[in-house]
């Protein structure tokens, strides 16, 4: 982003506008964060794909600071409807016009017929660096592939109320809100 020459009053107006886009306040949700942590690392299997403070899986975004970055309603949506908004992946600092990679679902088929699904850590015209659902890196040349399919959906399953009750949801969200990266 280039530096700009906005006056202070203009900067304040932009901040006010950006804050207005936040769907809810940052008031903490009424849940039990200790129970939420147990669910996160236990029956919820969240940590199989998400890392917090160096513990957990690698397939999804690292959540160590998620409480500082996301609103309560966004966290709830991300659990109930994970495909509603896909988080950004790596941004290329050498290409300021580029779009960030996102945590969408990528399925490749090799010339030998092997099908692999995962998320793209990076991709360009000639290659793709895939982290598959077994959390193994697959470093692939597109000339060896029959197809590369991007689907605008998350690999994360939707945690409906049948899977995660409302009380458990509040507990998990309370835990996530407590994650500020300062532990």
């Amino acid at each position, binding site marked *: 982003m*280039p530096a700009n*020459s906005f006056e202070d009053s203009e900067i304040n107006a932009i901040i006010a506008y950006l804050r207005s886009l936040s769907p809810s306040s940052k008031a903490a949700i009424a849940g039990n964060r200790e129970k939420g942590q147990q669910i996160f690392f236990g029956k919820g299997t969240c940590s199989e794909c998400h890392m917090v403070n160096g513990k957990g899986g690698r397939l999804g975004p690292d959540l160590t600071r998620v409480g500082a970055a996301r609103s309560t309603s966004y966290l709830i949506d991300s659990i109930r409807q994970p495909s509603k908004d896909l988080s950004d992946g790596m941004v*290329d600092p*050498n*290409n*300021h*016009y*580029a*779009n960030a990679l*996102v945590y969408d679902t990528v399925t490749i088929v090799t010339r030998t017929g092997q099908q692999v699904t995962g998320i793209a850590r990076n*991709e*360009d*015209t*000639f290659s793709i660096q895939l982290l598959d659902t077994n959390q193994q890196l697959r470093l692939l040349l597109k000339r060896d592939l029959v197809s590369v399919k*991007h689907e*605008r959906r998350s690999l994360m399953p939707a945690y409906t109320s049948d899977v995660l009750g409302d009380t458990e949801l509040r507990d998990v969200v309370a835990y996530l809100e407590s994650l500020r990266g300062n532990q």
Partner: protein
Amino acid sequence: MRSQHRGQPREMCYTRPTAWRALLACSSFLCLSAAAFGQGQPSTEVTYKSILNAPLAAENWLTYSGRYAGWRYSALHQINTANVARLRLEWAFQTADQGQLETTPLVVDGVLYGTGQNNRAFAVDARTGRAIWRYQRSLPEKLQPCCGMVNRGFAMLGHSLFMATLDAHVVALDAKTGNVLWDTVAADYRKAYTFTVAPLVVKNKVIVGISGGEYGVRGFVDAYDAESGRRVWRFNTVPSPGEPGHETWTGDSWKTGGAPAWITGSYDPELNLIYWPTGNPSPSDYGGERGGANLYSNSMLALDADSGQLKWYFQFTPHDLHDYDATQVPLLVDAEWQGQQKKLLIQANRNGFVYVLDRTNGRFLGAKPFGHVTWAKGIGADGRPIVDPAAQPDAKGVVVCPGALGLTNWYSPSYNPDTKLLYVATSDECDVFSAMPQPYVAGHDFMGSVYAPKPDQRPSGSLEALDPLSGQTKWRFRYFSSPNGGALSTAGGLVFAGDSDGNFIALDARTGNDFWHIQLGAAVYSTAITYLLDGRQYVVIPAGAGLFAFAMPRE
């Protein structure tokens, strides 16, 4: 620097021996050059005649597009379809500064001259990449180029290099030392007038066009005397009261009307006309207070090279609401059109249509879309777009294709006389345009809009090979991301292009098959050039903050 190794026989050896080239091989310029080289004299002087003859002296790269016709095509063919797979890195040069290189280097008798970020400049040994001198302009703190502290290259005449600067000066540097020879103020940078353009030398004049269409400047094209730096003429791209075209602006909107001129034009020496394209009216995406066609925004101007007088104009996108600058390099091609030999001007325009004009008089001959276009339903017989009213931006936002960055943009196209194809990089991005009134404040953004990619789309792009006369796509090479780099084509049957993910690619000019590519580690924001030195053909591409030179392995 010595150049006794250079000479006509070697140059001809690597230039395709067609009949017309053989006929012209002993034109006065080439024979003089050969004589000079034969005496072992360093020859770093560029003359108007040598630029005119650039197509026949492919060992150098003397002007932005390689020749006045704008083709970015080289007759060199040592690197060709049969051997390009063995191409290898010969040297790299780094400016070690933030931001990206958008320069097109010039190469004259073994020395490569380039401009960099923040108005750096440099001369390097074109054989080794070693610096001969570096220049760093002292710039004011508060500068407002819309799209980076970039520069697109030098022009050269005699022993002087000409650079148009971010603080709206035109400067001449000594080619051997980088010392400043003259420095002329063109406009007031505090009102967001900036230059990013590579100048064009015509005869003894240095032609430049201003940037600042995002800030409500009043655009112009200037000519400066190459020797003294004195301004010889100015053509204001927004007419003032009493001038023809002023009636296309309501109220005082002309005063901040934009119509910048930020990409290098082409030149027809027979007609003595400079073809210089212009950019968007200001504010770019809100037209409520600038009623009318807004001449001469988004137009092709045909200017008399000596006087700057307007001979004709053609406006591609009247009363633009989508930032569709016409700042794409015009291609001057002589070809048969509907049974008659014509002097044509071809432009693949940011608005999504490839146009064919009669360059003697500006008459519209035809236009075809070369990608997905929704803002207009087509181009009428009079050359005017059939605009879709539903594509007009409003406060709520509408999806329009192409997006604000265009189906193509400033990065160079190439025309190849062997294939008779036009190579142009394209983006398939569509944008959500929203617009609202905005008061003008001198030196501040003046766009009246915001735009963003369509949310459910990941923009990508292509390198397209078009038959420019029919508009038909002959082949398409898909890029993963929207491009920011253009195309160089050669008599070796190749097209060289760089993508935004850092790949430099050599494609078959006839089929689009990719023969070779290399990852350079940073996005390509420019277009390749080629030259011949020590009997070896080099291809140079800027990527990130570096230049990378490639050649065939030594025998």
